[in-house]
């Protein structure tokens, strides 16, 4: 198992190298620079030139590339021009927000999705199946940020149940954290819930046809154990494999949701950096996000192995 993990990690290294090159490259084709943000709308061209000089934006790109990789090898992602802090620190500071959001959403999507999919599979062809699958389809057909705007209006403004946005750290106020996470996570989860529901249904239908399900029933197991224990554990195997991909999708989706709900997360950091041309943050942020994605997929692989003993024992 450990060797397997190490092997996968090693295989990820070239990917990360390419990722870092791409991160750096993107920045170099983006027009405009951070001086525009810093100087303000009515700054004159002269003021701007002075600012650029001071910020070191006039150095040639190869010089900056060498500097960037040099620092990177020492674990230094550089420093944000606008935030008065290191890129790594800026990201680490926001990571709890994005991880809270992503994983709450993942949990909601996974639990609700598999429940919906299981229900649909067990009641295949019946009205409940159609209702569940209809919900799933509609779930990933609605643009999430749009839904977020509607949710804020309904649940925060009209009903007043939940805050309109903002983040409350878990450590300060767990309940406040939950309240601040509910709307954005639910919004973000909806599309992936639909996906999980569809996958679960398909996998479940296949599993329910399997002989071991008949065995379980022949043993006198009640329906909920047959479905919940014997069938679901098998049906979840393919579902879990897409959880890794879903995680990437959620990380991407978090970008917009963080804006809609004013959450100070990594997505908004990077989008803000792109919009304001805070180059070190764009580079470091993209690199780190991609790394997280790679790591999450590694974890999913390991989880997959836990779920399916056949993989764990190197057979199949």
């Amino acid at each position, binding site marked *: 198992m450990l060797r397997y993990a190490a092997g996968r990690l090693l295989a990820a290294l070239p990917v990360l190298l390419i990722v870092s090159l791409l991160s750096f490259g993107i920045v170099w084709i983006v027009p405009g620079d951070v001086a525009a943000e810093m100087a303000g709308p009515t700054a004159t061209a002269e003021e701007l030139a002075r600012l650029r000089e001071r910020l070191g934006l006039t150095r040639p790109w190869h010089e900056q590339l060498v500097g960037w990789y040099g620092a990177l090898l020492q674990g230094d992602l550089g420093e944000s021009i606008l935030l008065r802090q290191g890129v790594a620190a800026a990201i680490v500071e926001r990571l709890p927000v994005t991880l809270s959001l992503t994983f709450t959403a993942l949990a909601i999507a996974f639990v609700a999705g598999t429940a919906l999919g299981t229900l649909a599979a067990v009641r295949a062809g019946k009205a409940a199946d159609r209702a569940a699958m209809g919900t799933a389809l509609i779930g990933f057909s609605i643009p999430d940020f749009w839904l977020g705007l509607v949710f804020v209006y309904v649940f925060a403004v009209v009903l007043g149940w939940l805050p309109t946005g903002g983040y409350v750290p878990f450590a300060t106020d767990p309940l406040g954290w939950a309240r601040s996470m509910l709307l954005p996570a639910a919004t973000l989860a909806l599309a992936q819930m639909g996906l999980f529901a569809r996958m679960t249904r398909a996998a479940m239908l296949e599993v329910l046809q399997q002989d071991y399900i008949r065995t379980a029933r022949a043993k006198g197991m009640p329906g909920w154990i047959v479905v919940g224990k014997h069938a679901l554990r098998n049906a979840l195997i393919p579902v879990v494999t897409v959880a890794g991909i879903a995680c990437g999708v959620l990380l991407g989706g978090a970008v917009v949701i963080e804006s809609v709900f004013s959450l100070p997360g990594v997505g908004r950091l990077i989008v803000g950096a792109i919009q304001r041309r805070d180059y070190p943050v*764009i580079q470091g942020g*993209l690199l780190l996000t991609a790394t997280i994605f790679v790591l999450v997929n590694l974890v999913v692989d390991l989880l997959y192995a836990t779920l399916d003993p056949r993989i764990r024992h190197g057979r199949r």
Partner: protein
Amino acid sequence: MAGADGGAVAPAARRRRPPGALSRLVAHPSFRWGLLLFGAVALCGLLAAWLAPFDPLRNNFRTRFRPPDEVFWFGTDRFGRDILSRTLHGIQVSLRIGLGVAVLTALAGGAIGAVAGFFRRVDGPVMRLMDALMAFPAVLLAIALAAALGPSELNVIVALSIAYVPRAARVMRAGVLVVREFPFVEGARAIGASPARVLLRHVLPNAMAPLVVQQTYVFALAVLAEAVLSFLGVGPPPPTPTLGGIIADGRDFIQEAPWISLTPGVVIALVVLGLNLMGDGLRDALDPRLRTAIR
């Protein structure tokens, strides 16, 4: 199934010779519904020039923020432009983007995937590059690229295509890996056909089905992604009407003028729903094995 006697259970209809993919597709209920939904919306978009009651770009500050009435069926925006007309034209632009991305990723991703799957020597490096692209959340990558390339319809297509190419490449590669082991491919090789010919004539046609299915979903994803890009201000530049752009126009007035965002939002949902239903139908008709591998 019912054990050794299972065959006896099957209803008679299923035992007839399986019908062709096309008739299976047409008979598929979700495909029909999807086609109906998507077709209806797409037709509206195609006929926008005739259907739209007003010029989608024409400002009129005397008709700003009109709620839906008999003149402006879906109200007007802050420029006094007719939401119905903008939405109809927006469908056209958004679908063009979606289709553009679907086709471009199919071509690029298909080619990359086919080459990687068929010529094992390049497989490693090519797929590592794809993995790297895939490691960026697609939306984030598209935002960065769209900002880099500058705002235009074409650049949005290019940015989204780059973001979605790895998926297409992976699907194609997986298909090619399976097909290249088929006996007739071995046969073609044995009689000395060139690798390119084997790939193009024998492998590709048989490995296409999953990609076709996949691209339906990519089409849908791209329509959604356009909306996200427009929302974040890196979509096709105003005043071009796009579905996402109209939503973005109305975002600040969700409470005061909900009709601005509501109309295109519903249309996007219908388009994506239709495409997904069509994709499901295609998947079942073209390749039943794909049932579990959605997207």
